[in-house]
């Protein structure tokens, strides 16, 4: 105000300025003030990915999805494949802490092993995102399926299918040491507590192994040919469960509910063929997109790692005969990799 003596002169000057700059603005465009810091926050940053193993639909899908979203922004990827070895995974996480990537995406083999390490990583300034299998430590973000909900919804479907039938069901668990299996079992128990009429003929662990699942199911079906439903814990394993049902000639009579990542060959195709009656999918590409979004948000926020914590539970897609044919219920790994 000091430069311009009176209000009248100031108004005049402002008007003159406006007439000068107005058209110029329209020609030059307006700079959006936040995109540059966003780009800078992402460019050259390293995201380390520690899955329990590569080479299966979930982990390959997450990786492909993350890369697709983040690589165009100059984010670098480091991958440390634990290959089903918990020790190797813990070592990978430990060495990553000293390598200081900006973000670690961790797929826990169990609840305890990585918990302390992940806490240390966040103290060292690394954002930790846990995927599908959480640990006892709550990090910046958890993106993944709610296993209890999966168990509940699968069991509800089986109980419904059993109405008016023998009310005898079987449970094919995963590996006992895996929290995903234990959480799912909790969901199963929650529903069974409400339905005392349901009898569990067998509840055994098949170690995520299709051959074992088949062996167990065959024996159970021979003993209980009137079984009306099976709750399986993973579609990759329940191919074996389904094969046993089919061999016993009970396809369509025994309701088989399972869950998985929703890859077309492992989920929709098998629902279409009648092997599975219900496959609760935790839609891997959506999970990957949510993780990528979280990484973008965290890196651009500048928040101190560990200072904010939240969860993004995946909205489940129940795949049945009705939607197995649709383009959106399942995804193709080959498309995601393109």
């Amino acid at each position: 105000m000091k430069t311009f003596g009176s209000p009248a002169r100031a108004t005049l000057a402002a008007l003159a300025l406006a007439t000068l700059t107005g058209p110029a603005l329209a020609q030059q465009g307006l700079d959006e003030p936040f995109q540059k810091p966003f780009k800078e926050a992402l460019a050259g940053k390293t995201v380390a990915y520690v899955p329990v193993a590569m080479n299966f639909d979930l982990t390959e899908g997450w990786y492909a999805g993350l890369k697709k979203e983040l690589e165009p922004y100059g984010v670098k990827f480091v991958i440390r494949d634990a290959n089903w070895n918990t020790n190797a995974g813990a070592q990978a996480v430990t060495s990553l802490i000293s390598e200081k990537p900006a973000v670690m995406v961790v797929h826990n083999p169990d609840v305890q092993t990585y918990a302390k390490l992940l806490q240390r990583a966040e103290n060292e300034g690394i954002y930790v995102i846990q995927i599908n299998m959480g640990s006892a430590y709550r990090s910046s973000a958890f993106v993944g399926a709610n296993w209890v909900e999966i168990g509940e919804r699968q069991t509800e479907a089986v109980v419904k299918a059993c109405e008016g039938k023998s009310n005898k069901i079987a449970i094919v668990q995963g590996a006992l040491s895996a929290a995903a299996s234990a959480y799912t079992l909790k969901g199963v128990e929650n529903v069974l507590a409400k339905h005392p009429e349901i009898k569990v003929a067998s509840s055994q662990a098949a170690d995520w192994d299709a051959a074992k699942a088949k062996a167990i199911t065959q024996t159970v079906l021979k003993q209980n040919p009137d079984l009306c439903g099976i709750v399986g814990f993973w579609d990759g394993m329940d191919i074996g469960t389904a094969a046993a049902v089919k061999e016993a000639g009970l396809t369509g009579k025994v309701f088989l509910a399972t869950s998985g990542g929703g890859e077309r060959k492992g989920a929709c195709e098998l629902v279409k063929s009648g092997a599975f009656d219900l496959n609760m999918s935790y839609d891997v590409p959506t999970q990957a997109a949510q993780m990528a979004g979280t990484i973008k948000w965290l890196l651009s926020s500048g928040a101190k790692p560990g200072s904010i914590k939240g969860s993004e539970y995946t909205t489940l897609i129940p795949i049945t005969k009705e939607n197995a044919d649709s383009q959106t219920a399942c995804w193709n790994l080959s498309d995601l990799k393109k």
Partner: protein
Amino acid sequence: MDSQWPTSKKGNKGMKRFRFNQQEIVFAVFALLFLVFSIFLNGFLTAENMLTLLQNVAVLGILGLAMAIVVIGRGIDISLIAALAVPPGLVLQMVQNGHSLPFSLLIAVLLTIAFGLVNGWLIAYAEVPSLFATLATGLLLAGLGQAALFQLDVVQWSPGMDGFERLGQGAILGIPTSIVMFAIACLVVAFLLRQTRWGAYIYAIGDNPYAARVTGIPSRPIIVLQYVIAALIGCFAGLVMAASVNSMPTRVFNSTLIYDVILVVVLGGIGLSGGRGGVLNVIIGTLLIGTMLNGMTIMDISYAGQNLIKGMVLLLAVITDSFLNPRNEETAQQGDI
């Protein structure tokens, strides 16, 4: 010294009266278990359940045969599970990628033979101990599969494979196909071991490799042959398994299946020191494991409980064996476990 003679003689006499070998002990344990389950377990002793029991261990039994051939020749093949997983996985993957089934099978068989030749060459000519050689080659083949051959570690069935699932599903004359496959494999291996000169050579090499060589037996080519046959049987077991579960979970390489296979062989009475045992031993070992698994599944025993019982029965068999047939310098051989 004098005082020791009578006691040891007495001991020998005493032992002669209860001279059971491990095969008979395991058979007795199997018979006892079978009896107990039949009496106390509803639905155990039915024709259908017996078939299920056999069907569930058929693949294990076929693998046991492959292992038996190698172990009789005083070797061990840790890479068997890789031969089970990778070539059949390759068949499924190639068919998925649009190749024809016969062509894919041919490639898989060639890969298996090449793999067996590498194993055999390492052990027979480079003289690497079989344990280490097959440990390494198994990792190599499984790694090759993971890195280069498969897109995902569970290779799914594709429409091009239709018809092939009959190798592991359905029944022939009322007997589930996988049992028939096990029976065929038993007959082939029994013929090879008992009726051919090569079989006799394998026993000779296993009993005393140096003597065998001095006698003029072509030891090295026979050792190579053993590993090639073992790999081929492993591949066959894998095809039966894939057909049976409509997919090939190649991750099975990381499982403890190989221990079960060794267990079947050793429990059945084929000593790891070589030169002893045959197809019958594999069948007995397989039956015992099958009976235990089936009975425990019917009883719905928890996983931890099953492991405990399995461990106890095995320990019992081994302890009984070492009581009745104590090891001494005469019977102990290098490599005996």
